[in-house]
């Protein structure tokens, strides 16, 4: 229920947008798939509650960073797929830059990568 294995909610909240954008970078995905991916790729350390995922997707959609579209594939249920928009790509790049700088500063100050 809304818990994360990494106990840094704020960090997670700030990064959530970047994570979703990054997962959509390669190809379009639907909500359930995104939730599953986050769970599996973070080895369940980063569990995204769907209660937060969908509002996040809707917010990204309203900000025109992602675009949702109902797609019906042969033999599958009709699902809503989200894909990155050009603005979303730019936002992702900007997020990455910010994080890279943040991590670099963190490294310099704490040397935690060597820890």
């Amino acid at each position, binding site marked *: 229920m809304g818990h994360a294995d990494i106990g840094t909610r704020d960090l997670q909240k700030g990064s959530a947008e970047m994570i979703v954008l990054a997962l959509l970078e390669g190809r379009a995905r639907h909500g*359930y798939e995104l939730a599953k991916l986050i769970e599996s790729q973070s080895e369940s350390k980063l569990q995204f509650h*769907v*209660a937060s995922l969908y509002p996040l997707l809707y917010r990204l959609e309203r900000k025109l960073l992602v675009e949702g579209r109902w797609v019906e594939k042969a033999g599958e249920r009709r699902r809503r797929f989200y894909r990155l928009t050009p603005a979303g790509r730019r936002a992702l790049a900007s997020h990455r830059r910010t994080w890279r700088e943040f991590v670099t500063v963190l490294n310099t100050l704490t040397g935690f990568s060597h820890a």
Partner: protein
Amino acid sequence: MHNWRAYVCRHLPPLAVGPERENAIVAELALQLEQAYSDSLAAGAPEAEAVARAHNQFGDWAAPAREINAAERPSEPRAERTGGVLSGAARDVRYTARFLVRNPAFAAIAVATLAFGIGGNTAIFTMVDAVALRSLPYPQPGHLVAIETRKAQQPELEPWTSALDFFDIREQASTFSSVAAISPIWSKVLSGRGEAERLETLYVSADLFSMLGVNAELGRIFLPKEDNRTQASNAVVLSHSLWLRRFGADPNILGASLNLDNAAYTVIGVLPANFRYAGEPVAGTSSEIDAWLPLSANPIVSSIRGLRFLKVAGRMKPGVSLQQSQDEIGRIGTRLAEQFPDSNRGFVYEVQSLTAQVTGRFRVAMLLLLGTVGFVLLMACANVANLLLARASARQREISIRAALGASRLRLLRQLLTEGLVLAAAGAVAGLGVAYIGLRLLVQTAPATLVRPAEVSLDGRALLFTSAAALACALFAGLPPAWRVVRADIESALRGSGRVMLAGHHRLRSALVVLQVAVALVLLVGAGLLIRSFQRLLDIDPGFRPRNLITISTQMPSSAQTPEQRTALLRTMREELAAIPGVQSVGAVSRLPLLGSNLCAWLFVEGKYVPGEPGYDVEYRVASPNYFATMGIPLRAGRLFDEHDDANPSAGILINETAARKLWPGEDPVGKRVKLGTPPERFPWITVIGVVGDVRHAGLDTDPRPEVYRPYALNPLSSPILVIRTAMDPGPLIDVMSAKVRSVAAGVPVYNVFAMQALVDRSTAQRRFVMLLMTGFATAALLLAGVGIYGTVSQAVVQRTQEIGLRMALGASPGAALRLVFRQGILLTGVGIAAGSLAALGLTRLMRQMLVEVRPLDPVSFLAAAIALGAFAALACYVPALRATRVDPLVALRQDC
């Protein structure tokens, strides 16, 4: 099989989004649950656990709903966030414009309705403004007043002031910076320069022009020396139009000599093109004054104090109030009555603003029209408000959602008012076109005495009025739906069909329809009263037979100076005219009925008059022997004049029936003796030789006054008015007649050639005009009310389709459905008629002055208006009622309202 969608629907609180979006979100969340459930099953979890995992996906549904609502909230544009009100307003306007473009039928009906209302109002306002509202075109018009002498016993008589009274008032009044006198319109013949032409002239005291702040465009205006009572001046000031028409705008006209009525005048100046004296005696006539003469040149300026023939106007000194000048003039009047009891006792001296004098005679009619057209605008607004309400019903969910998304009520109110404003602005633009066309029609159809085309045009004031009208429309049409929507329970509208709101809309729409019916009834009653009044007017016997009767005004030439010469010349004219085939008889008179001019005399009855007491005020006319037969005025007693009546001053007189009744009630007046003129000691006794029928000289709606006729031979007129009766339509004979009159002697002018029927028609023209306009607007009101009833009843039928279907499924006949719908429409109409009748009871009193022989509470007018409105309402209900009878119970019951 689990219905995950239903599960989500049950648990997810209502979202503040549109229905489509909500559906999509519910579907997506349901998919999430379904997938989680299927995956759990696939992973070997038992059914119960799989269901529990799916349920756990959301847990507390309120939080995600809040988050989704927050995520879906549109981000406000920057300008609005920072308080850019105008930018928000621009978006509202764009939004409305988009809506109107997408709904052309709605837009066309709303804009056309408003254009009709606003355009009609602007046109009428422009006319009323020119006729009755605009201030006089002189500097500081508020300081200009009319000074009037009225007979205390007969205040309805036209007020005129004597020259001697005028001189005394001018000398004694200290609250005025100037006081000026104006004579009646004097017809003069201009001869000696090309063809003789009749001019309309005024004798005025020298300071009239300077008092009005008018200077000459060429030359000069009168100087004080030209006001010298003991030495007549021969100066003349020309109007711009005469200078242009007759003298080709010759700049060397100054100093030229003009022959007017065989007297020589010297041109000293030309007035500016835009100058027109607005006060009496010009007010209320279509006369254009061609030339202005000094009062000192007037032949009767030195006459006795009892001869009242001048209009007096004055300019109050700065800081003096109307009451102060009234008090002073009253004191002067009292003093004059004490000084000159013979001539002045029984007269009161009054002051009123010159504007009131100018506009007084039209004011009631004009304000009536303005009020009428204002009511029509109110109805047009009510119709548009009704349209907007119908629209608001259709989009209540959208509005509620916007409210739930955080749009403030003020913001929504602004949006809805903007819609009204955009419609009103479009209506105003289209309305200006309507006003332009309407005004042209008005000017073409209005009697010339009422509207002078040169003074009526759409201008800044009209534009201002239109804008104000549009703003009022925007508020009136936009506010009811806005109020309704903003007050509505947003939560309930979001949840379901919003029946609460629809019911509210319907109540408001019903109220608007009741208002429309009530207003329409008031206008129909008003129009009915005017129509009935006009009918009565046309039924009034003018006292003569106007059919096949021609009148020609003429003037005796300078060669005919003595009474004998004039009598002989008139006889020649009569003989020449009578010789024309088709002419039956010819007569002559000094003042023609319905031409507006009049002359009064004092009459003293033998045996009844007390020396020192004023006599009876009677109208005085001179007539040739066969005038009465020609006009068709019947002889009631005694005999008419004959060819033996001569210039003997004691020769008999004829009186009319009103004089007979008033002077000798219950007695035979023939053979009785009277004196004419004051003081009576100086005049001989005259015997009444006959009584003739009453003639409505002043107008069909004015009761005849006591009147005396004297024979032509006694007072051969210098400007007789000929009347000619023909056996057939006199139209083709007019030119022959005019030529005959001219051929009698050199320099004889012919003017005012009319068919008498045209004079009768002209006397009723203003009433006819107001009646037609009022009838037109009342008809428009009837149509608007019909449209309003139709719209409201139609919508009610749509809303009650299910109920009607149910009733019919339960065995109700189509007739019952018809009655159901009719009952509602007729109920609204009934309430409207009742409310309108109450309003009309109060409002028609204001029309009293406009009515002839019809009471303001005339039951026929009220009943006719109610029946017309009821019948029209029934027609407006019939179409939706018919639709109700065709409701298919199955379709209706399946429908989700």
